[in-house]
Each structure stands twice: as C-alpha cells, then as structure tokens.
C-alpha cells in the first residue's frame, strides 16, 4: 500500500472538511449520496488538486466550498467560517467547469460588472479589467458578446473574472477545459505566478499530468469518498518500483544486456522496470558506459497517475 499524504499541512488551515456528507433527495423520495464522510484539510499557500473520475463528487465538493450547497452531514469551514459566510465576507476567485455568463452581455462589460460586485473601487475597475484582459489575451474579443466567444475564449474570460481581485482563495474547476495547447501552457504559467504564501489554490481536474505539474498535493476521490491524498513531490520509498520508458539513439543491444527484462516498443524505445531510483541510475550509467546514446528517460506513468489507478482502478 503506497504511502498516503493526508497529514495536516504545516501552514495555517484554510479549508477544513470534517466528515462531510452530501445526499441529494428528489421530491419522489429517491436519494443519491454524492459525498460521504469526507475529511480533508488544506493549508494556506498550498496548491491543492482534486482528481477523480466523472461523478466522483468533485463538483459537489466545490459547490459546498462556495456555499452553493450545504453539507447534509459533517462540518465544512473556510477560513474558520461556514463556507457561505466566508464567501459573502471575503469572496473567492472561482472558475466553474461550465462558464455560464449571460450571452447578451459584452465580454469587457461582464468583467466590469463582476469587478463592481467584487467591490473593486470604481476608480480601479477599468484598470483591473484591462489588466486581466491583457493577461488572458482577450484584447481582440473584449467588445464581443458572450455568445460570440469560442469555448476557449469563454474559458479565458471565466479565468479573467476569477483573477479580477487578489483573492486569498482560488478555486479552479477543470481550468484548461477547452483551451488549446498554447493557452494550456500559458495557464500553467499564470497559476505558477499566482502562488503566494498567503493564497490557497484548489484545482479540480481530470488532467492528472496538469495536477502533477501544478499541485503540491492531490486528493483522489471516487464514489464521493476520499481515497487518498498524494504528495506530487518525489518520495524515494513510494516512487521506487516503477516502469520507465527509455529511448536510445544507438546501442539497442546494449540496453537489452543492461536491462534484461526490457520490452521493445520500436524505434529504440524500451519499457523497463526498476526497483529503485538508485538501480535506475546505476543501470543507466552502465548503459552509457557501454557506449549507448540515451535520448530520453521518462516514467511510464506519473506518480499521480500510478496512485490514481491504484485508488480508482483502471478505466473501464
């Protein structure tokens, strides 16, 4: 069983789920448990990921964090307050999975409206709106109506409104959904720049690679339950036995000598299993010493992907 990382963060607590449950009940009396006995603590300054398959309960958790839904059982605190009370007092930078803005509004005016609601002083509204428009590259779309924006541009507008104010908590639900590769990369840079010791960023995503790159810890949830919390940093014990993909430009026969169980994938690519990072490095040194030219070494699955599959199972 791999080591989980659900220990309390060292920094001050910002988000605290305590045995939270959420059950949806229909008028006909049917009920569905979306979240069950969910406990989690997220500290100040963390970038925290939430991963899980469709219907795992990610959106319900986020709706509860924003006070849009109330937990059926348990206790949820944001900044020491009930979630809705926190939002009404301080606000949260939020990008929802589905960007829903009145289609008749103009993009820049929508941002002015949100800035007004966010309480940005009137004198600063225009400057702040211009700033997020520049940051998200929306200049040429600023006068367009929402209904005329493409999915990617709408997603960027959604992110722009979340960044209007320097919020201490940011919640980004599937933030790169609909973004092209250029803007996906740009988004990662923006999130990197947003990291601050007093800011907590929560990212819910299907994209494990993205969470691996951005988040410090990731909660893996399934069937409304927390399966495990994974630290994305390197953990020598946890990450030791794994499969790597090695590509050699020359010396394929030598690779098979050094890694006897290697499986060839063609074009100099091999899949190898090592029991430790030490073994990997020693074997690679041996391989290079024998004259082979190694062009790439990557884990076949990221730490997070491996943990995710262990927690949730292989996709059906």
């Amino acid at each position, binding site marked *: 069983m791999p080591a989980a990382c659900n220990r309390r963060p060292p920094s001050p607590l910002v988000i605290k789920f305590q045995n939270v449950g959420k059950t949806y009940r229909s008028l006909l009396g049917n009920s569905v448990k979306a979240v069950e006995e969910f406990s989690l603590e997220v500290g100040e300054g963390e970038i925290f990921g939430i991963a899980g398959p469709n219907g795992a309960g990610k959106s319900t958790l986020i709706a509860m964090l924003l006070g*849009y839904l*109330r937990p059926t059982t348990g206790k949820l605190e944001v900044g020491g307050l009930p979630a809705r009370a926190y*939002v009404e007092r301080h*606000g949260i930078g939020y990008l929802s999975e589905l960007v*829903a803005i009145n289609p008749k509004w103009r993009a820049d005016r929508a941002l002015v409206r*949100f800035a007004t609601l*966010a309480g940005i002083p009137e004198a600063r509204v225009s400057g702040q709106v211009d700033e997020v428009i520049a940051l998200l590259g929306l200049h040429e779309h600023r006068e367009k109506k929402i209904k005329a924006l493409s999915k990617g541009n709408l997603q960027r507008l959604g992110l722009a409104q979340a960044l209007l104010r320097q919020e201490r908590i940011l919640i980004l639900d599937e933030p790169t959904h609909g973004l092209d590769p250029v803007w996906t990369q740009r988004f990662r840079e923006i999130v990197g720049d947003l990291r601050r010791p007093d800011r907590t960023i929560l990212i819910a995503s299907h994209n494990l690679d993205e969470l691996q790159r951005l988040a410090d810890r990731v909660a893996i949830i399934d069937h409304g339950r927390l399966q495990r919390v994974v630290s994305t940093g390197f953990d020598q014990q946890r990450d030791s036995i794994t499969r790597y993909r090695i590509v050699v430009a020359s010396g394929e026969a030598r690779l098979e000598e050094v890694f006897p169980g290697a499986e060839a994938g063609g074009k100099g690519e091999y899949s190898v299993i090592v029991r430790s990072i030490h073994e990997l490095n020693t074997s690679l040194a041996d391989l290079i010493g024998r004259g082979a030219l190694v062009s790439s070494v990557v884990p076949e699955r990221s730490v997070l992907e491996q943990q995710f599959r262990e927690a949730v199972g292989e996709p059906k």
Partner: protein
Amino acid sequence: MSRGRLAKYSLWQFRDFVMEKGISIVIIGLLWGYLQLLPFRMSFSPEMTPEVITRLVTLLAGSLVSIAVLIALNGIISTDRKMGYYRFMFSKPVSPVRYYAQLFFVHLVGLLSGILLLATVFFVVAGPFNIWNLMLYTTLVYIALGGIGFFVSAASRHDWVTLAAVWVGARVLRGLYGNGDDWKSKAVELLPPVHKIDTVAGSLIATGTAPVQDVMWLGGYGALFFVVGLIVLQRRSLAG
C-alpha cells in the same frame, strides 16, 4: 461594504431590466392600448370625456399592469439558477438575499418607468387623466402579485408557470367556493386575493382612493410572500 457595491450594481440591474423586459412591456402596452383605443375612438370620436378616458385607462390597466408584472418578475431568481449565472456572481463577496431584494425594487422602478412612458403616450393621444393614480395602482399590483412571484421564483425553477397556475387557480376556486359559509369558503380566503385587484383598480385609478382593507390585504399578502421568498433564499442552496 456589500451595500455600497450592490447600490452601484443596481445601475446594471436596471439596464438589464430595460433591455430584457422593459422594451417588451412598452411594445405590448402600445399594441394593447392601440387595439383597445381604436374601437373607443370609433364609438366616441371625436371627443372623449374625462369619465370615458378614466374608464378606458381602468380597462387597459386592469389587464396590462398584471401582465407587465408577470413579465417583470418572470425568472427574477430562477433564471440565474437554471442558467448557472449565480456561480460567478455569488463567488464575489455578495449576499444573494440582498442582491435579489434589491433586484425586486429595481424591477419596480423599471416597471413604473415603463408604465409612466405608456401613460404619457396615452395622455397625449387620448386625453388627460390622473397618471399618479395609475402609478399607485401599478405599485400595489407589483407588491401584491410580484411578492408572490418573487417567492415562487425563489422556491421553484418553473416560476412563470407556477405563478400563472396559482393566479388562475385562485380565481377558479374563489369562483367555485367563494360565496359559501362552509370551510371551503373560509379556506379560499387564504388564496392570493386576485379578485380584489379588479375592485381596487376601478376605484384607485378613478379617484386615487380604495377601501383600506382591500389595499392592506393585497399589499400585506404580497409583502408577506416577498419576505418568505427572502427566507427561502437564505435557507435554500443556490445550486439546489
């Protein structure tokens, strides 16, 4: 703090009302007025006495104001829920209760502006009548009908249909059981007092006065439901 930013936002709310509802109300009012005025013009042409004009205004306002209130209140809360617009609005430091309470009064101002515009046109085309009395009547109907509409929109996603059903149902049930002495007759007294609107309309528009009991019953009924609507907003989940 929240009140300050909400007060500023009221200008956007008013703008939305004008673009999404106000223009429709004015167009419907002009067409309705024209269709009603035409036969009167032909019957009483060329002169219309003040009594005839007041009767005509009462006739027009009796139906138009109720329809305008229905249009003004349609989806006041439920649209944001259905379409998901609440997600970005209420992630800001804003209380939904205050936001929608303000919106209710912004829509009243918008409705009064629309009715004032229509009344001015009618005043010029048909002849003089007391516009102030019409404004009073509009305010009363807005509070009576709108208060219930506000509650329905807070509680249900299908507010327009529900409100229309409540309104028609109240009329039908009162027609069936309203005049007896049994428990059914007493029970229908608790239904929305739609029948009182007709009697108040004639009196209020013509003289500027109406039976205090009727006005209190209408206004109180709507105000009570408005407050219940605010409580529903406070207690019910936005995403529910």
